């Protein structure tokens, strides 16, 4: 059994006890039920063929403490902006998302920006992103992505957007923003890297130099524990993070390395939803009492990882690389008066979900065997993206 399988089995054993599900009052809605049915083989596929799927995932959160007041919020992330003179394509898509969020009716109560506003952490890129986001007049909250952080270790980002972790209560829901990027191990000092080299390695998803940088960290875990301690155990909690709070695919940091500790802190709470970026794809997972929803990027879609795609995920369509608006977008989220949260993936071109295996992003990746790169492990070739 390899390391990933061993960890996955440990995760299953520890968190997926008998009858363990997210939230005592969680109900699977018709649409979610339909997508689960697809996993069950030919009968499921037939069922899927008969019912049109809508690009939303619906679920109910706990009723304790009374129904929440209806409200909407929006998520935008992973814009990966370069300076305008290098790439206007990503700018155009970020502008489009921002305009559409501002035009939401009824208006969203707030926008969460989920990180990776910039591509290489350049102040020019962050300033550009900040200017674009000024179009949104509603409340905005921000968490950082690794691309925003590692040129100057967060100086510019924090000067624009403030503390990278925070919490607030809104209409019966406790919202928490986590910083999952700033606690990466120091891979630069011993190798005497320049800030640009440090950033370059961090910006390479499949690179080996930056290592397992995604994590919450002991201090922030303590802060999270304390932050939640005053909140009733069965009332809704929504945690925003750049990286998923479970182990999906560590080689691309599609996880946080201390996911076990995170789950330990969250274990007493029965209605926790994690909404995350970084993976640039449709994702849904439930582990123990925690449910996770992965958001789209506005820049480009990542392929599904060769292994570890959660079984509960109904994969998105294979993106057309010739169509820059395909496979990307943002999310509109609604909490209605019945405490029901709906996540609507706003993907600009094709249908969100694939209708046949041949069109599915994870149906398509089953016939490939992949191997990590090597050039960045050798000193003579050291320093891509200088």
């Amino acid at each position: 059994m390899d390391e990933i399988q061993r960890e996955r089995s440990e995760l299953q054993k520890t968190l997926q006890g008998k009858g363990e599900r997210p939230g005592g009052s969680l109900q699977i809605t018709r649409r979610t039920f339909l997508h689960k049915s697809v996993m069950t083989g030919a009968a499921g596929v037939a069922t899927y063929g008969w019912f049109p799927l809508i690009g939303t995932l619906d679920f109910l959160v706990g009723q304790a403490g009374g129904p929440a007041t209806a409200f909407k919020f929006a998520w935008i992330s992973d814009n990966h902006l370069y300076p305008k003179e290098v790439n206007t394509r990503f700018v155009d898509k970020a502008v489009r998302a921002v305009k559409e969020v501002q035009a939401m009716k009824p208006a969203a109560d707030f926008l969460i920006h989920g990180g990776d506003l910039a591509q290489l952490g350049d102040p020019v890129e962050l300033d550009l992103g900040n200017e674009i986001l000024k179009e949104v007049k509603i409340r905005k909250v921000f968490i950082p992505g690794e691309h925003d952080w590692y040129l100057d270790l967060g100086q510019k980002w924090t000067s624009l957007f403030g503390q990278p972790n925070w919490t607030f209560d809104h209409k019966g829901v406790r919202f928490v923003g986590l910083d999952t990027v700033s606690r990466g191990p120091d891979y630069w000092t011993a190798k005497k890297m320049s800030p640009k080299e440090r950033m370059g390695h961090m910006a390479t998803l499949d690179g080996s130099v930056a290592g397992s940088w995604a994590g919450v960290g002991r201090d922030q875990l303590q802060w999270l524990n304390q932050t939640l301690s005053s909140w009733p155990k069965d009332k809704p909690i929504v945690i925003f993070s750049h990286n998923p709070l479970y182990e999906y695919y560590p080689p691309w940091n599609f996880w946080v390395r201390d996911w076990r500790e995170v789950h330990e802190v969250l274990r007493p709470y029965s209605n926790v939803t994690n909404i995350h970026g970084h993976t640039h794809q449709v994702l849904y997972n439930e582990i123990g009492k925690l449910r996770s929803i992965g958001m789209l990027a506005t820049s480009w879609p990542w392929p599904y990882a060769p292994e570890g795609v959660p079984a509960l995920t109904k994969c998105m369509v294979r993106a057309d690389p010739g169509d820059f608006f395909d496979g990307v977008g943002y999310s509109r989220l609604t909490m209605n008066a019945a405490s029901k949260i709906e996540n609507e993936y706003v993907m600009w071109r094709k249908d969100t979900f694939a209708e046949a295996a041949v069109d599915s992003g994870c149906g398509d990746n089953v016939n490939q065997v992949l191997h990590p790169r090597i050039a960045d492990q050798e000193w003579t070739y050291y320093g891509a993206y200088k």
Partner: protein
Amino acid sequence: MKTIRIGLIAAGVLVGSLLIVSSARAHKDKHTPQQLKAFEEVFMEQVRIGDLLFHGDDATAKKLNVQLSRTGMACAMCHPFGSDNHPHEFPKFQEQIGQFATLRDMINWCIEKPNEGVKIDSDSPAMKALEAYIYWSNRGSKLDPGRH
């Protein structure tokens, strides 16, 4: 005229025979470990160069006189670990190109369209290195030409 044609045929037969003999001789002796290591080194050097080009290394691109991107995008940004390249599925009808295509055709399409770079010669050192890296990173995948 007839004499010239006979002469050309005879010359062709002679060259062909030499190649066959030489090729047969090349495999007559057992390979030494040093030879095998040298063969692998030649291949892996190309893999490394391809890896760097694939990950947007400017110095390598400059050395090979190619401009694979003008958008800041590198191949690996959409294809981490060489995923979603499916080199083992070529040749095939490639939807984006609208015709039957080889892996090299598709590499050039990606350079020209999403990356907005400059198409490279299909037998150039840069193309061979990119091909080496893409195949190497997908080694073990089942050969399945024509699969969409």
